[in-house]
């Protein structure tokens, strides 16, 4: 099915904070190693096409996470004989993911309560 590419208006783009992008990437890799393109597609799909990560944010994030040794990379050959750099979650990364998720959950709860103070 052909999807028509709409030019998004500036206001429609949701700016992702650096920390939340890290969380998304780690979460994505939890389901298995992926290359950069795959990660961006997965995030897009899983968020219902809302979160579109642009490459100017994705690749720096990937390299930064790799530097902090939460993900590791290696070059593999894909099925159609193409070389691709594939990232996977490390043990330390798994720990980081767990702590980030709980922090995110807390943040979401807090935001929710702050936005709707009437609810108890």
């Amino acid at each position, binding site marked *: *099915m*052909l*999807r028509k*590419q709409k030019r998004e208006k500036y206001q429609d783009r949701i700016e992702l904070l650096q920390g939340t992008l890290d969380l998304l990437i780690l979460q994505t890799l939890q389901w298995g190693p992926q*290359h*950069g*393109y*795959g990660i961006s*597609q997965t995030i897009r799909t899983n968020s219902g096409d809302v979160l579109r990560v*642009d*490459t*100017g*944010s994705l*690749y*720096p994030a990937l*390299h*930064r996470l790799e*530097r902090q*040794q939460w993900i590791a990379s290696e070059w593999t050959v894909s099925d*159609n004989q*193409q*070389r*691709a*750099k594939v990232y996977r979650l*490390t*043990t*330390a*990364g798994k*720990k980081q993911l767990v702590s980030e998720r709980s922090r995110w959950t807390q943040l979401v709860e807090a935001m929710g309560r702050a936005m709707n103070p009437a609810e108890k």
Partner: protein
Amino acid sequence: MRRFRRHREEELEEEIASHLHMAIQDRIEQGATPAEAGHAARREFGNGDLVRESVRRVWGGMWLDRLLQDLRFGARMMRRNPGFSAAVVITLAFGIGANIAVFHLWNAVDLRPLPVDKPEELVQVIGKQNGLPQAFSYPWIRDAAMKLHSVQGIAGSGGLPVNEIAVDGRVLTERVEGNVVTGAYFRVLGVPAQLGRIFTEADDRASAPPVAVLSDRFWRREFGAQTDAIGRTFTVNNLRVTVIGVAPPEFFGETIGRAPDLWIPMNMGPQLGMGWMLEPYTAWIEPLARLRPGVRREQAQAELNVLYAVSRHLTLRRGGAVDFRVELKPIGNGRNRFETLSSPLRLLMGIAGFVILIACCNLAGLFLARSAARTHEMGVRLATGATRSRLVRQMLTESLMLAAIGGSIGFLLGTWGSRGLVALATTGSVLRLYPNVDSRVVLFAASLTIASACLFGLAPICSGARKTLNSALSAGLRTHTGRFEHRLARGFVVAQLSISLVLVAGGLLLVRSFWNLFNQDWGYEKSHILEIDFAFEPDVIGKLHSEDYRRLLLGKLSAIPGVFSAAAASEGPLAGVRQDGKFSTLERPAHSGDKLYYVQVSSRYFETMTIPILSGRPITEQDMHRSAQVAVISETAAKKFFGDANPIGRSFTNGDYFVSAAAIRVVGIARDLHHQDPREPFLPLVFRPLNQGRFVSPPSWFVRTHDDPASTIPAVRAAVKELDHNLHIDRVHPWKEVIVSKVREERMLAWIAGGFGVLALVLACVGIYGVVSFGVNRRTRETGVKLALGATRGQVRGFFLREAAVLWLVSIVIGGVCAFVLLRWTRSVLFGLTPYDPTMLVSALLLLGAVTLAGAYLPARRAACLDPMNALRQE
């Protein structure tokens, strides 16, 4: 590194390309044409350059984040182990501080150039007539300044005897040092004024108003560092001078050891009562010159040679001088009054180097013990994802942080301690030294800190690098914990003890040597005597040559209450000047190799200086009036020239042969005394009455007091002033001070080496404590088993003490060998003992043993007092 960077860039390109490729493939699969797919994919990808830039920024910025993280981790580790951190910092502070204190002094004396512009262009002008050194006169220098082309300027400076100085009507009591200089002095040296202006040629004229440039120190002290000091006046030797400038803070003149408080143009000499300074026959100046850029010393020397020959009438010519030559010596580091300090300072630097080595061994042991204790923690961290390189890097960061703190404190300690060193180096003299912290000292401190950090930081890294995940996690369960670390720690302790042995032995040798030197029989009493030096002025010298005047002065001095007697000598026993002479008897003409010295003394000299007369009589007042030529000779002289025969009544001549017309009769024998150098054996001395014989330098004056000599000083000053208002005293000081200043190098060495020896012993004790403690902890279960199986506490204690004793034994073997090799260097400074003196070496061994025992005792006792049940239960 560049290959790595290129590889990184290439990989990024490939990654971007593969991303695009996959994006395009996806779109084609969904039905777009290749062209459409390409467009869309690229558009969605965005700006490739932006992507590249942002990734590069990530690559560049990571190191700062990592560093901050490591620093924070290091700080946390330090806070968690305050005792350990404190021990490390204190040990380092003392080790580095010791080195910096010595280096600071060495830098000030030997290494640093004068704080002037381009010191490499400065030369000292040494005149030589017939090969003998001869200074220049003021007229010659002024003439040369006008005629010379190869130099930018030539200037002279000389000491100004400051007899009285008053600021704001207040007479200053502290000793003030002044210099008279030619007009071009500051310009030749390249020293600008901090405030006001420096001298010009116009200031150095008889008609010019009297002006002065102050030193920074003097300006701060007497003028309160006020800018309005310029233009104010004060009086020097009854001449009112105006302040026209203040020299920069680091400037102290051109002589190391002298730091004048004020400079005055030389032409003011006559107005200051020193007309002789400007006379052509007073050749008293050693000029300085600054070469023109590009001119070599040989060229300038050639020009000066010609000038010297041509204008020699303007300066003093020695009788019979035919060869007039000039030698130029580079003087970028200044004239040095501390030459005798150079080799002791180098020795001290070597000793200080050993101290820091000991400190590093100590620290390495500490770090190893801690590293072993953290084995389990390391294992956990490795298991949860840290890499070994990261652990190692964090340990190194912590070591460097501790080193930085220890080094900074050490730096402060060292600069403060160097003041004590300066005091030791200038004891009893008028020399002054103000070391200031310059780039050389800072660089030395920084390199030493980093080198130390590497030395002791390597140990835990070696241990950390060996850890594998398995061994680390299971460490708690086995008893093989830390075996490698313990062995390495023991190795470090042995190294430390060996070096300590050398240091302690050296310290003992130097202390004993000074004790020998100072406490030997000098031939005269050390206390209850005052020495008086009168000002080096022609009028004063002239007066003191007159016998009547001298008698008046001696009488006045003896009459002071509290004074036993007064006397004078052509050279005091420690004046640093010697009069050569010959001694010929009828039986024995003078041999060419004879070394003996003549001294002319007043009556009561021997009783004033407490020199016993062994037989015969001393020089008396009658000898001064009579024409008979008499002398008192020292024991050594008697033995040397008369053998066993009684010299009293015998005669001799001060010449190559005995001449009865010039015969001098021996009337007494004095006990031997040290004349000018306490390090030499007693020399033959001949004492003659003060008016018989020629002497050129002004006499030294002595006063023997009943009580403490220092308390009599004001009375002496008052008495002299009462006698003659214009008889200016340069210095009055207790004789003991003079004696101490004669041996100040040995004294300095004794104090410093002794102090370092004590430091080494303390560090050794700490080191032993650490390593035995470590061993005890390691063997807790084993000890528990032993105790449970019936071993006595004494046996357990003995086990650990024996371990320490083995370390001591090994160290003294290694240390003994090192000592044999290294202590040789102390031979030149030792007095009364050899570097291999058995008493000292054995004492060093025993001291080290005592310290080892002391350090090992507490941990051994702790092991012996273990509760077996608890010990066995320990994991």
